């Protein structure tokens, strides 16, 4: 995991993220009705795409595990699920922030949003199952649950096409989306998907170390997920009359951006803390650094 290849890709990823962000916040043309608040689009959609890819990998890894009982497959499955939940969490946070601006309300119970929430809950329940099952049966049970969860994914995607929904329809590749915006979006897609893969790789490495430690018969208390707090107070004080002001649009963009990166950075810190704890434990057991 500490290979030079990883660090090279990390540098590329950071550059790509910086470029994508610059494109999204500065270069991309402002949208006609929503102005700056629309820029949430540039990290909401890529986060959703990245999460879907990760959940897809989780499904494949789970099937692989059920067939071969390979520890690598299990580590990959849990890494992708956990990072996927974080990225999808970003989707579920950035979406409502935008929705408060665009529709006046944080949430509607339409097909698209409800099915997305269910999908997220499914993978959260996957993580809960991993944490509360007897060791020895965890991997098998979780892999089985992943198969069930994966069956829900097609439903989530079809919901946007079958049932009427307020959520914006898919626009990539259609004349509905301005060409410049599409370019910016694609840069950000590449950046965030790569970001997702990098974090998953890191998380996978942690999981493999954890597996090795477990094999030395040590009980580990796994830390819970961090609680993310949004500056919700600011948003709740918005008066409807002001909503169309440019300043407000700008504010929404900033809040969305800050919230999203707080989640990403918070999760990365959580992983780093976990890694530090494990390193200390591994050192005390005499496990060689890999």
């Amino acid at each position, binding site marked *: 995991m500490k290979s030079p290849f990883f660090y090279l890709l990390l540098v590329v990823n950071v550059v790509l993220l910086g470029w994508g962000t610059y494109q999204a916040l500065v270069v991309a043309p402002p949208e006609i009705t929503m102005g700056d608040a629309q820029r949430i689009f540039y990290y909401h959609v890529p986060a959703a795409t990245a999460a879907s890819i990760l959940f897809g990998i989780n499904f494949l890894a789970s099937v692989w595990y059920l067939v071969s009982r390979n520890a690598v497959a299990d580590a990959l499955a849990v890494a992708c699920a956990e990072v996927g939940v974080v990225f999808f969490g970003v989707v579920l946070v950035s979406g409502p922030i935008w929705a408060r601006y665009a529709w006046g309300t944080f949430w509607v119970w339409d097909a698209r949003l409800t099915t997305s929430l269910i999908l997220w809950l499914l993978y959260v329940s996957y993580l809960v199952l991993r944490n509360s099952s007897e060791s020895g049966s965890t991997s098998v049970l979780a892999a*089985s649950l992943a198969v069930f969860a994966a069956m829900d994914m097609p439903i989530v995607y079809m919901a946007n096409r079958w049932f009427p929904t307020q959520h914006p329809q898919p626009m990539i590749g259609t004349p509905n989306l301005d060409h410049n915006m599409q370019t910016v979006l694609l840069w950000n897609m590449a950046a965030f998907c790569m970001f997702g893969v990098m974090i998953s790789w890191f998380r996978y490495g942690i999981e493999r170390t954890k597996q090795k430690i477990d094999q030395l018969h040590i009980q580990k208390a796994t830390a819970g997920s961090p609680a993310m707090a949004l500056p919700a107070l600011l948003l709740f004080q918005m008066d409807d009359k002001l909503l169309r002001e440019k300043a407000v649009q700008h504010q929404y963009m900033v809040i969305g951006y800050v919230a999203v990166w707080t989640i990403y950075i918070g999760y990365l810190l959580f992983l780093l803390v976990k890694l530090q704890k494990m390193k200390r434990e591994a050192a005390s057991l005499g496990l060689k650094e890999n």
Partner: protein
Amino acid sequence: MNLSVTKLAALNVRKDLRLEWRSRDVLNSMLFFALLVVVIFSFAFAPTREESRRLSGGLIWTAFLFSTTMALNQSWARELRNGVLDAYRVAPAPAESLFLGKCLGNFLLVLILECLMAPLFVLFYNLTAVGAYWQLIVICLLGTWALVVNGTFFAAMSIRTRNRELMLPLLLLPVSIPAVTAMVTATSNVFTGDSSALVQIKFLAVFCVVYTTISVLLFDTVLNAE
């Protein structure tokens, strides 16, 4: 050796029903719970006749969902009490027969509950269906099977978790929500007569087929996850 899955499943059902008849704990608690839910809802909402029709789907299926969860927990609890599961796993019988037997047993119990509760619902909420009655029966059968098949599977899964009674609803509800949404919409549609429930019925049928298949295929793995 005659070990056909259907035959063994049938024997399982017979055994479960006989056990249930002798102790009657599942049926009693389910019944009482569903009754409580109906009464509490009618105090909480006090709907008019028109509202009742619109809310009917949600009310009925919430009550049944909770009762089903209780039934599922209980039915596996009985297996665990004397550690009988080990005896199953050591025997050469295929695990699918245990699973199907359990599903069918639970299915029958919940159906009995529904038959007993339905008149009460109609009574308390002044419900009369404007749409097609036969659709209600199909929705009921498909919806119950969807809940029971997933529930039995997840109940078996949660045997190996720390908070067994909490894990079952935690695992079952997210997976079931698409089916429950379809059931509720379909039931309300039939009661109000606003639109046909056929789309939801088709969805429920597909849901049942897909999830029954996956559950049967994965049950052996889950039962022997040690």
